[in-house]
């Protein structure tokens, strides 16, 4: 039963899979150890998302409470740590309603379609050195592709619910997602050019300087776009609860609602992991060979806290402001960033195409100056201009003067006046 994964196998680069396969293969037949190794990976992935969602929901509720001078959930467990368990139990026991006029099959498929991309997104993120569950050589492209599936799930939810608020929310969500996909992709091109690879492991190892300072514009665009794709405030048009009840998941309850919420909270954690990997140096840090997972976790938490901070601060944008921000600010800025990065790489790299740390430092200076200029230049485009209202009627409108209506005579008692 000596099953050993050969280097020709497609999963050979996935260290975790290979190790589990080789370990289990000592006693089990090859086909079974294949399944066992696959199960271990899937188990890790699913639980990482669900635990991340639970941790994030607790963290968000506590922190939003602190931001608003409240306490947040603190009744169950130390610091209310078991609150996600209570939420989950409550949602599991609630009645699982399906509207009578809903498109049943699509309605049922939505929670799965929401959760799956989040899990898939985490599959290529390296938690520590050589620890990505699947080390794809097109990791960045894969992440962009997989996150776009969420928009389909949102539209499925809105359409199948047969509810006008759900449909409004879905339409808004899709509009936002389509708009923000473009600047996000363009901003990631700069990172990919700097790393010279689309593999996330290579992106991490290329960050001798974290890309957040080398590519500040790309970082801002990516974070804003990610927040929009996650339907987080200030971009939560799709589920604006003060306007659309709950947006696309208005009709969901019970376990389905729990899954959608888990997908949203887990999505923030997964997106934070992606941001950390692409811009904050991933698992790199002191003693990264041993403590890489810790640095990754801490950085991810920091980014997630940043998302919560933004949520606690900014009010929701209107849809036109949202689209104006995407098309008038983020897209030009990311395009300029792309052009600048391409020129910098062209002039700074040595003969073998390698960028040293000093090169990255020079690029940092240029890009920061460029960012200040871009913010100054394009910021005025999204700033709303308040025009003073001209007195009188607009030109071309002739006033229609109605005959004065006579007030009906009132009978006043004698001796009284109005």
């Amino acid at each position, binding site marked *: 039963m000596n099953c050993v994964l050969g280097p020709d196998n497609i999963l050979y680069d996935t260290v975790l899979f290979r190790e589990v396969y080789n370990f289990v293969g000592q006693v089990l037949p090859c086909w079974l150890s294949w399944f066992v190794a696959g199960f271990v990976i899937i188990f890790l992935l699913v639980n990482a998302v669900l635990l991340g969602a639970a941790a994030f929901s607790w963290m968000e509720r506590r*922190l939003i*409470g*602190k*931001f*608003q*001078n*409240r*306490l947040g959930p603190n009744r169950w467990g130390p610091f209310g740590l078991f609150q996600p368990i209570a939420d989950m139990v409550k949602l599991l026991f609630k009645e699982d309603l399906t509207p009578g006029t809903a498109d049943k099959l699509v309605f049922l498929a939505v929670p799965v379609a929401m959760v799956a991309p989040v899990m898939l997104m985490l599959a290529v993120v390296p938690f520590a050195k050589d620890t990505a569950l699947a080390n794809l050589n097109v990791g960045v492209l894969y992440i962009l592709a997989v996150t776009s599936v969420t928009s389909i799930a949102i539209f499925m939810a809105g359409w199948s619910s047969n509810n006008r608020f759900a449909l409004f929310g879905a339409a808004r969500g899709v509009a936002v997602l389509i708009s923000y996909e473009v600047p996000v992709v363009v901003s990631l091109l700069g990172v990919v050019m700097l790393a010279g690879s689309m593999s996330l492991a290579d992106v991490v190892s290329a960050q001798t300087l974290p890309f957040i300072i080398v590519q500040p514009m790309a970082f801002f665009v990516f974070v804003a776009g990610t927040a929009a794709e996650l339907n987080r405030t200030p971009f939560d048009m799709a589920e604006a609860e003060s306007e659309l009840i709950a947006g696309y998941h208005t009709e969901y309850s019970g376990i389905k609602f729990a899954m959608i919420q888990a997908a949203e909270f887990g999505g923030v954690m997964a997106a934070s992991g992606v941001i950390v990997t692409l811009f904050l140096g991933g698992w790199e840090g002191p003693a990264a060979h041993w403590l890489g997972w810790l640095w990754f976790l801490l950085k991810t938490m920091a980014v997630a806290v940043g998302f919560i*901070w*933004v949520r*606690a*601060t*900014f009010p929701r944008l209107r849809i036109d402001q949202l689209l104006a921000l995407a098309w008038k600010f983020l897209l030009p800025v990311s395009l300029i960033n792309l052009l600048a990065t391409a020129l910098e790489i062209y002039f700074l790299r040595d003969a073998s195409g390698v960028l040293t740390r000093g090169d990255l430092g020079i690029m940092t200076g240029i890009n920061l100056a460029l960012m*200040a200029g871009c*913010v*100054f230049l394009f*910021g*005025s485009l*999204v*700033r709303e201009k308040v025009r003073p209202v001209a007195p009188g009627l607009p030109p071309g409108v002739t006033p229609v003067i109605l005959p004065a209506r006579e007030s009906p005579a009132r009978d006043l008692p004698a001796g009284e006046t109005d």
Partner: protein
Amino acid sequence: MYGLAMAKGLMVTLKNLTKKPFTVQYPEERLKQHPRFRGEEFVWYEERCTGCASCAKYCPLGIIKIVTSPSETAPAEGDKYRLEEFDIAINRCMFCGLCVEACPYDALFMGSGFEQGSYSRQDMVITIDELRQADKHPSTFYRPQLEAQEYDPRGGRPLDWRQVGRESWQWHQREKAGMRIAGRPAPGDGDPDGEGNQLSAPATGEG
């Protein structure tokens, strides 16, 4: 520059993050109640009550039920009725305090409590026995002179019937000399001034 306002907003929320929460964890912590709070747990001084039923007449909801009978000293002028029932149905009470305002003898007071919730409507009726046995912690609503003697309705010493009247309790001694509570020790015992000891003695002599 564009974007500075966003940073300013973020700093505002960050400042709030470091502040102490305003939340009062109710069952464990309690806010200090205002002394003139109109709460449940009516405080009733039987020694002062003459059974005139002004409170029952003034109650807009009619939830005070008073049954009286002439006491054995009833024919004597200035004597009081004997109270047989004094029920306050606080499940319908709106705590307007009109009964307290109406009482001419300062016998009825609002309380400071707000935790009388129960599972049965029958439990929400305060009977005369409960009123007799309850601790006397009157709210200072409509009797602000109680605050002059540094009295705290929420805890602290309970107030004796002599200490709560708008006028001196000796008012009773002079004008209601025949006052007596049936089946209870004479209220004049342990009088601090030493003047009230004769309160019940003439009454028994007349009877």
